[in-house]
């Protein structure tokens, strides 16, 4: 995340100027293309400079866009391998790797020379030769490559061993049959004392065997790798984190211990056992606390990766978070939250990925993010997807915030709901809706009020969105919002946004007193029908639906009364209506009575309304609407049989869910691409379940027995020596060494202080023993390797 080019772009304020200035910059060489013959001549030359120049031209041709044919130079280029110049070699190798596949026969000619370089005195030449040889994609040579790797594995220089580790990957890709041999080499390399060899070996292992194969190869070096991870390079760390997470799932069963809770000193105990799982509900039910019992080796892994949270590499930070989230969220996850927030400083491309992952963690553990709410305030300069993610996080942590912060968040959302950007308006209004789902009634009222205020806005888009969210909220708890619907219906007079109008009409049809016969709904319908011509199509559809519902409600109530009448005395409609009214309260009855009297004389007003609606719909230009009108007409054509229509029109609607937008991605693994893309890609990156108790490999397999025996006596004294003292000792004893060797020691002792730090929490004597063994041993090893 800390990238130098980013900082330098900050530093160079006059960057554009510089760009212009250097646009006219002459390039290093005049790009005067030479004819192939002349390039060949250069390649055949005896002067190093000419050969180099020729090679550069060839490489430039190979990379130039559009690429120029360079295969013709193959023999000439290979011939330059016989030159003793070190400067040309990398270029020749580069060319060789690039072209070997195209002309395998010629490539094979070079194998001999490359093989000779494998036993060069210079380790860098050896490493390069090994790398090149493995890179030649000609399957015939797989056995030679395998042999070369074998030789490289036992090389004294760590550089060559690292190259050997990486060559393993290429060897298996080249020829699958070499896998058994390669795995043997990897097993050796995984146990390498030099951390950057081990790091490369882990990378190669993950690449060759995947994270789910051959755990028995990991067992013997598991503990050492845990201790070395701090010193590996970032890419090795990433591979180890990935491997270690899977390894832990497959080797350490999840054990929980139920400890009897000390009731009298509950708080005290909680403070004391910080790692108790904070499961409030469960605690209340039972008298026990559930406590994770972690294997010592798992603890070793989890503590050893903690320093990596200060890595400059965002991928490492995320990988550690992933390990914590899936291995031990209760104890360790909180350490990773701060570093995750730090990722928001990184360039925008990384920031976006980081936010997706933060949302993923936030879905499960929102409470951890509450102290960082300020980091999620929106900026007007951010692209919309980042803003959307930030809004989501704000709503996720909303229920956990204090009242002050809730006010802040709501003010924030209100501000952005007035933004000119329609997508942002939609996002923020929906976010308010999600906030309103909080169990706290006061809060959810506030949100509702906020939304209701929005419908007076002149921004159609905002009103439409707000109405949509209000509709959802009302549907969730219709009984609380009866009055709201009536109030909304009043707004129909001046509301202009078609989506909002449609929403309100629907709400009226659904909740405004259909069950009590003619409530507001009929009146609303009457008023709306007057303006039917001026409405948009969506609203017209809703009006028609409303009319159908009102008519149906009326039919139903009439049928009920008729039915009742039949049961009672089969008398006239007057008494029937009154008797049906007994279910309702007195006031209503009076209203109905009056109405019912008038119903006798002329056709029912509701029936008339219905007929009028159908008439209007028949001459609507939209055939969709006409079609629908026909459907309703057919449904309601026989006043006596309304069962089907009731089933269709008055069916209870499912309560709409407004989950967090990322809820759908919940199952994707933290840090995976699927999470960002939002689609399940075919990938193997899913974590295995915890292994069942009793099936796990014995913890003894991870012992590093022989090492202890070998060096057991030597380390007793060094156990409690601090890094500084060790350094002084080393200084005193190793005067006459080369610079590099000396530095290596220096490095080692530094490493030690680093790893000590990592393992200090563990505090077992055995481990620190082992550690110093590892140190001293690698000291010797390095010395041997480097002095030579």
């Amino acid at each position: 995340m800390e990238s130098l080019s980013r900082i330098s772009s900050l530093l160079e304020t006059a960057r554009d100027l510089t760009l212009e200035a250097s646009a006219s910059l002459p390039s290093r060489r005049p790009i005067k293309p030479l004819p192939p013959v002349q390039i060949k001549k250069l390649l055949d030359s005896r002067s190093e400079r000419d050969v180099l120049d020729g090679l550069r031209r060839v490489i430039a041709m190979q990379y130039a866009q559009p690429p120029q044919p360079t295969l013709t130079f193959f023999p000439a280029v290979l011939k330059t391998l016989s030159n003793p110049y070190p400067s040309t070699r990398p270029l020749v190798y580069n060319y060789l790797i690039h072209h070997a596949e195209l002309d395998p026969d010629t490539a094979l000619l070079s194998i001999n020379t490359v093989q000779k370089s494998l036993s060069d005195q210079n380790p860098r030449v050896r490493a390069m030769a090994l790398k090149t040889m493995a890179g030649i994609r000609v399957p015939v040579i797989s056995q030679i490559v395998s042999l070369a790797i074998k030789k490289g594995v036992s090389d004294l220089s760590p550089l060559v061993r690292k190259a050997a580790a990486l060559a393993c990957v290429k060897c298996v890709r080249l020829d699958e049959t070499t896998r058994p041999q390669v795995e043997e080499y990897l097993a050796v390399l995984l146990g390498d004392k030099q951390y950057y060899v081990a790091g490369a070996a882990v990378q190669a292992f993950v690449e060759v065997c995947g994270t789910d194969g051959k755990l028995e190869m990991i067992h013997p070096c598991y503990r050492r790798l845990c201790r070395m991870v701090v010193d590996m390079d970032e890419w090795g760390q990433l591979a180890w984190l990935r491997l270690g997470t899977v390894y832990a799932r497959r080797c350490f069963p999840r054990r929980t211990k139920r400890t009897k809770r000390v009731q009298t000193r509950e708080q005290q105990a909680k403070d004391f056992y910080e790692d108790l799982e904070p499961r409030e509900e469960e605690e209340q039910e039972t008298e026990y606390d559930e406590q994770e019992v972690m294997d010592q080796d798992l603890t070793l892994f989890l503590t050893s990766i903690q320093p990596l949270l200060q890595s400059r590499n965002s991928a490492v930070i995320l990988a550690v978070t992933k390990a914590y989230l899936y291995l031990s969220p209760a104890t360790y996850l909180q350490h990773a939250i701060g570093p995750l927030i730090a990722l928001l400083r990184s360039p925008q491309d990384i920031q976006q990925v980081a936010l997706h992952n933060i949302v993923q963690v936030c879905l499960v553990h929102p409470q951890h993010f509450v102290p960082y709410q300020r980091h999620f305030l929106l900026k007007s300069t951010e692209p919309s997807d980042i803003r959307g993610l930030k809004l989501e996080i704000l709503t996720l942590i909303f229920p956990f915030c204090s009242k002050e912060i809730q006010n802040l968040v709501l003010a924030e959302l209100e501000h952005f709901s007035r933004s000119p950007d329609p997508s942002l308006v939609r996002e923020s209004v929906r976010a308010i809706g999600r906030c309103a789902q909080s169990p706290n009634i006061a809060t959810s009222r506030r949100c509702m009020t906020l939304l209701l205020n929005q419908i007076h806005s002149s921004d159609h888009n905002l009103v439409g969105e707000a109405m949509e969210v209000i509709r959802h909220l009302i549907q969730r708890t219709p009984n609380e919002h009866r009055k709201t619907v009536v109030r909304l219906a009043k707004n129909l007079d001046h509301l202009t946004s078609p989506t909002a109008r449609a929403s309100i009409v629907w709400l009226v049809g659904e909740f405004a007193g259909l069950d009590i016969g003619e409530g507001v709904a009929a009146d609303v319908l009457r008023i709306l029908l007057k303006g039917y011509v001026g409405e948009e199509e969506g609203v017209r559809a809703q009006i028609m639906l409303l009319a159908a519902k009102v008519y149906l409600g009326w039919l139903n109530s009439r049928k009920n009364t008729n039915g009742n009448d039949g049961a009672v005395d089969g008398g006239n409609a007057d008494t029937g209506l009154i008797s049906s009214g007994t279910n309702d309260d007195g006031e209503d009855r009076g209203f109905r009575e009056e109405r019912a009297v008038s119903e006798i004389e002329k056709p029912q007003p509701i029936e008339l309304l219905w007929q009028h609606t159908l008439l209007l719909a028949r001459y609507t230009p939209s055939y969709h609407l006409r079609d629908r009108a026909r459907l309703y007409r057919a449904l309601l054509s026989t006043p006596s049989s309304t069962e089907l229509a009731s089933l269709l029109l008055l069916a209870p609607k499912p309560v709409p869910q407004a989950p967090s937008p990322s809820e759908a991605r919940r199952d994707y693994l933290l840090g995976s691409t699927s999470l960002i893309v939002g689609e399940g890609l075919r990938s193997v990156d899913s974590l295995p379940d915890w292994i069942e108790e009793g099936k796990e490999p014995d913890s003894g397999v991870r012992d590093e027995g022989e090492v202890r025996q070998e060096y057991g006596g030597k380390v007793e004294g060094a156990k409690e020596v601090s890094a500084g003292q060790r350094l002084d000792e080393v200084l005193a004893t190793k005067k006459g060494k080369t610079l590099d060797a000396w530095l290596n020691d220096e490095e080692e002792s530094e490493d030690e202080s680093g790893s000590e730090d990592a393992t200090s929490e563990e505090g077992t004597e055995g481990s620190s023993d082992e550690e110093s063994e590892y140190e001293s041993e690698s000291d010797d090893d390095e010395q041997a390797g480097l002095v030579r």
Partner: protein
Amino acid sequence: MSAIEAVYIFDEHNNLLLSHTYTGRPSPPSVLLPLYLQHAAPRSSVLYFPALNPSTVLYSIIQDNLLFFSPSSGTDTGEPLLVLEFLHRVADALEEFLGSPLLASKIAGNYDVVAQILAEIADAGVVCQGEANALRDVVETGPGVLNNLLGKVGLPGNASVPGLSGGGGGSLGIGGSGGLQRPGSGISSLQPAQTAQGSAIPWRRSNVRHTSNELYVDIVETLSVTLAPSGRPLAAFAYGSIAFTSKVSGVPDLLLSLSTGGKGAGMGHRGDQLRSVMERTVFHPCVRLARWKSEGVLSFVPPDGRFALCGYEVELLGADTPLTAGKNAYSSLGLPAGVEVTTGLGTSGNDFEVRLTQPTNAGGAGSAAAASLQSNLGGGGGLGSRPSSFRAGAAGSGDSKGPSLENLVVRVPLPTAVRNVTELRPSKGEAHWSPVDGCVEWKVAAKDFGPMGAVLRCTIQGPLAADSDDAGAVMNGLTATTYDYNDDEPSAYQASEKTEKHSNGVSVPVSREAKVAKSRELMPTSSTLSFGVKGWLASGLKVESLLLDNKKSRGLGQEVKPYKGVKYLTVSREGIEVRC
């Protein structure tokens, strides 16, 4: 599995510049680019193309106007951050070798170097060497290449491209031409890249030799401040980075101590204070974490050349600042400039006013700041001054005396409905309205910006439909005047107008209200302030000392005292945002 399959680089016109395939048969750049361009402008860094065969995930970053692609089509699409970090490292490494900024022509002219870098940074798709400096050991730039490059890269001014001088980063550009007069950076003797032994330190190339030894610390802080309409800060962060330039022979062992400048006092010892100010730190792998944890100092063996040592963030508000903190909380942040926006002004409410202010800092203001520059900043006295352990020779213009403010720019984005900004009246500086970006940009020269601040007033015009009312009003006015003119009785007109006003006393405000409501939609909802301050850090951090441990260092003569330089810079890149 998580292997990098290929790297494609495009220039600013989306022409393919380079393609390097590591492994497998990834989709070619010619297929990916159109698909990438299909997506709307702020493109996601991770895109998925299921229609391709094989379906491909495309990772992309943009650095220095160059577009970097890395497709991934394997069964395992890997970790997105790994690939993105890798692409950033590639950009860093190219910059290390080719100089900053990266230009298409530089890449095209150095394909051999670029090819080696790409091949070394990842081996058959397995990322194996992310450290740009260590690549110097393995990448063969050939004899004479560096000199050749140096000779031609020379740019006008002192703010030269940190080319390959000294085999590493190079001088930083912020000093400007009149800025730091660094002693001529000695060109290190160039030895053949291939050294017999690998460097013992993975991030440092071996056998570093410099004729003059120099160490530079550049601390850059980027501001991110959000202000509520009332002017009180909602959030205020400074994101800091320490860029370190080391040009010291052998293997130096350095100790960098920072001090908080009084912040976080009472938090225990110095290290604790520092850690309470510098939050959520990330470090280059060379930093000894244990020393940081125990003593709060940065102890490290640096790579050669320039590198990012450390990143941190500072919560300027302080975690315990109540959310209800008043407006004066902003001035307590000590920022050199503030901005306020008032909307809905004028008779029909279609004016808005931007006020650029200098927050008066109760403590430091009012001192006899001769120049009108930053009395409040200069009031701090020691804020920008160099610690005594550094040589004073490198005092720059904006460094020791008083921090200098520059590049004050206010941007006011306007809604798309705004048709035109008819009037722009800045009291100082220049303002212009760009219809393409839909924003008003106002630049104020630092020397014009005094304690009195500056004001910009704009009148905006809405869409044509909304304008018809106005036109009608104008028509009315016109007829009225002609009538009056004909009548030749101005006094009577005035009188009549008065009576009209009286009689319509109720209706006039109503129509104004409607107008205001209409133009409220056209009002800006935020504005941003950008500036740069040299010689001052928002966090108040200071470099206390930078020691070279002669005992632990190697390959450096006992009497060698490297030249040391420190630079502070605070930048706001649209980082201060005011809502309105």
